[in-house]
């Protein structure tokens, strides 16, 4: 007990300088999703096979959304606003902006679940229906949602089975099935607007697609050279910009522009201890209000923040602007295993605030200090 306390004590003193704010929570079960509902609450969900998993909408404590007079807000705790149980683990969860709808997916197959957050008169999250189109067992769908013109979901597990369906009617609006694409497994997809979307495959292939055209895949990048077998790629796109970054499990990051996917804007090598074996947790996200900044996690128990403005093609090793080590330091005394970050997310408008969660059920909210600009 004493040893753990002194490690924490040392890190705590250091953290006074590193963070403007730091909050540490312990969920009842670990989550692979952090999904914002506007800027006042987040959704998390259990991801364990073989048992009922909780989906929770957690209201942010006043301290984390107050814009002024933050000092007079004593409340620092999350409150369970809505909740429900899912029969299956939840690996993806998206909120349809402007609605009370959530869409989730997870094993044992590629079907989706549509949920609705109940009104203020109840704390329930109601399972509305299941979306099943070309359901395949043994995989799960990646999801992206859009609310215009009607709430719709883009989903699939391979390039050849990507589908856009209207959520309410389940009407199939588009599918890549007719395009004769390769059944390449995907790692990420994202609506750019209601008709166009980007797709990244596990091999690192990046496409731009337009659902109004045939064939729909209109732009594509080369597959980056693999250094080893089993390399896995994922992507993150910069909202409101044309930039997209691809992250490899061996630590490489490629920057591209949608307007010309054949060119590489920048390249960097992240310093990671070893190539990750469980690539499901690899995640790269761009900061909504901090230009050129992105965050990376899923390699170990840390979250790295990078400023990509200095990355030129062939830039070499990239130094992080900030590393959040909190999950490794504050690991429960009984556990010897260092936790693995399962997901991170940026605060929608607080520039340097991130949320991160690990497989030990910890959830951190941290506001880091950039000593380069401070």
């Amino acid at each position, binding site marked *: 007990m004493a040893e753990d306390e002194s490690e924490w004590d040392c890190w705590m003193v250091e953290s006074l300088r590193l963070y403007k704010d730091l909050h540490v929570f*312990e*969920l009842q079960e670990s989550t692979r999703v952090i999904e914002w509902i506007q800027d006042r609450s987040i959704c998390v969900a259990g991801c364990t096979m073989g048992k009922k998993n*909780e989906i929770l909408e957690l209201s942010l404590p006043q301290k984390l959304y107050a814009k002024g007079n933050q000092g007079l807000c004593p409340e620092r705790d999350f409150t*369970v606003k809505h909740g429900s*149980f899912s029969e299956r683990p939840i690996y993806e969860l998206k909120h349809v902006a402007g609605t009370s709808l959530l869409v989730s997916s997870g094993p044992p197959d590629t079907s989706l679940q549509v949920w609705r957050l109940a009104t203020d*008169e109840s704390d329930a999250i109601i399972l509305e229906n299941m979306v099943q189109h070309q359901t395949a067992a043994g995989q799960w769908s990646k999801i992206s949602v859009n609310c215009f013109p009607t709430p719709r979901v883009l989903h699939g597990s391979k390039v050849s089975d990507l589908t856009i369906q209207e959520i309410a009617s389940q009407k199939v609006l588009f599918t890549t099935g007719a395009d004769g694409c390769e059944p390449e497994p995907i790692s990420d997809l994202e609506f750019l607007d209601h008709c166009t979307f980007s797709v990244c495959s596990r091999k690192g292939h990046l496409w731009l697609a337009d659902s109004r055209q045939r064939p729909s895949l209109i732009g594509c990048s080369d597959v980056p050279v693999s250094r080893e077998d089993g390399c896995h790629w994922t992507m993150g796109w910069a909202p409101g910009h044309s930039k997209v970054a691809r992250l490899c499990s061996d630590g490489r990051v490629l920057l591209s522009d949608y307007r010309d996917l054949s060119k590489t804007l920048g390249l960097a090598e992240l310093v990671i201890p070893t190539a990750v074996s469980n690539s499901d947790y690899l995640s790269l996200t761009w900061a909504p209000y901090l230009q050129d900044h992105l965050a990376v996690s899923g390699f170990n128990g840390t979250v790295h923040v990078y400023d990509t403005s200095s990355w030129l093609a062939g830039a070499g090793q990239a130094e992080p602007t900030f590393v959040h080590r909190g999950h490794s330091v504050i690991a429960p005394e009984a556990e010897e295993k260092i936790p693995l970050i399962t997901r991170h997310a940026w605060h929608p408008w607080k520039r340097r605030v991130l949320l991160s969660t690990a497989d030990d059920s910890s959830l951190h909210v941290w506001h880091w200090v950039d000593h380069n600009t401070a």
Partner: protein
Amino acid sequence: MPEIKVTPLGAGQDVGRSCILVSIGGKNVMLDCGMHMGYNDDRRFPDFSYITQNGRLTEFLDCVIISHFHLDHCGALPYMSEMIGYDGPIYMTHPTKAICPILLEDYRKITVDKKGETNFFTSQMIKDCMKKVVAVHLHQTVQVDDELEIKAYYAGHVLGAAMVQIRVGSESVVYTGDYNMTPDRHLGAAWIDKCRPDLFISESTYATTIRDSKRCRERDFLKKVHDAIERGGKVLIPVFALGRAQELCILLETFWERMNLKAPIYFSTGLTEKANHYYKLFITWTNQKIRKTFVQRNMFEFKHIKPFDRTYADNPGPMVIMPGYCVQGTVGHKILSGQRKLEMEGRQTLEVKMQVEYMSFSAHADAKGIMQLIRQVEPQNVLLVHGEAKKMGFLKEKIEQEFSINCYMPANGETVAIVTNPNIPVDISLGLLKGDSTLGPVPDPKKPKLMHGTLIIKDNSLRLVSPDQAVKELGLSEHHLRYTCKVQIQDHHSEQDTLNRIYNHLKNILKDYPIQHLPDGSVMVESILIKISAMSEDQSTKDVLVSWTYQDEELGSYLITLLKKGLPQSIAL
């Protein structure tokens, strides 16, 4: 049906005060008697009209139990006992008994002397109320009367806080009050044994909260202090002597050197003397670490923290001061509420130029903690107060699903009745046990065994005896009921032969039953007697009389049906 009734007192859905009425085994218990700090009128007190419209509460309540000294749990006690009227016992732990009156008096002073309110309890009322208090130790079973007993358990939270078990016969309720499941720097974590009560009562807010860690709250506190000191400022930390003061002092002392700070830290002398005195008295209530260090030094003897002298107030340079708790109505409290201009005595207006940080350090359990405690206690039912049932369907389902028990969420003023299934211990006579014992393996003590007998309730004893013994004890004679039925069967043999044939027939069919052929020729199956009536006129038919006692009615019916079918030709004589 035996049941436990629970009514949280109060109007609307406000959560500012705790006062719960429990009826168990014919006894009425009030759990906590808190004041709502947000109201300035009678709404701050619980609504006692649920108990009785007028008159004193003494005859309606068997006892009152107070969980800890926070005003939202004990603030209305003098009002209830002295202004409404209650003369029965009030139970609380020793530290609570020592500290309650201090807080009540402080609050009374502010409310009456400073704010000029009427319809509030007086100093004498507080004293009279405290005279009714019976202090209890942890884990001590206290017999309130012949049937009602209570027991207090350590709750953490603040000095003297307790969870309480209330028992009447084999029915029991556990009330948690406020508690925490992780120890802090000066108090331990809540603990209760696996008492399996019929009902577990706690706060719904615990179950819906995911708390920021104590370490981060401490970090935030230290950072604010550190930043202010670095800028050369002074820091004022108003804190109640017997609440977090000790905790914050230990924290500052631990980190002062590590943070490379040299500024002096002061606390008000009144604070330390009082706190020292109480901690000395109640050292067993603190955690192990404190107890160990206490042997070596005084509770408030620190390297970097010293008593404050008013003359230091204008000293230049950075400083940290911990003056004391800011009760509602004080200047300190106004500043914490965000006021930036203060009207002082003599119409002088002061501008508040300092930065104000409001921090909460109170130790409470959260969603994970409450599930942990329920798992520890193993209740039959859970009841959560201060929540709205229709808004908490998920939470209810979560608890019901996790533990396979019912979860209730009454609104304030609503009564919930929880059906219980109490065991009634009964003495069983040896004769009955022996008579009922069957050959075979030794009965499993964990498996219920169904027995039949006569229950005699005399004075306070319950005994199960055999009916014969009961009849004997009561000096009654036993009546026997016998039914007789006549069945006509076609048989040309003599009476004796027919009876022999009936005997052989039954022997073939009823192989597991004791069948006797009596000397007079009649056949006996268990208690059933089969005879031939001598009154039959026709030689080819026989009137068979079958008679049985009411206990063998089923078998008797069966034999009638069997005989009505006639005797097979093949049956020998």
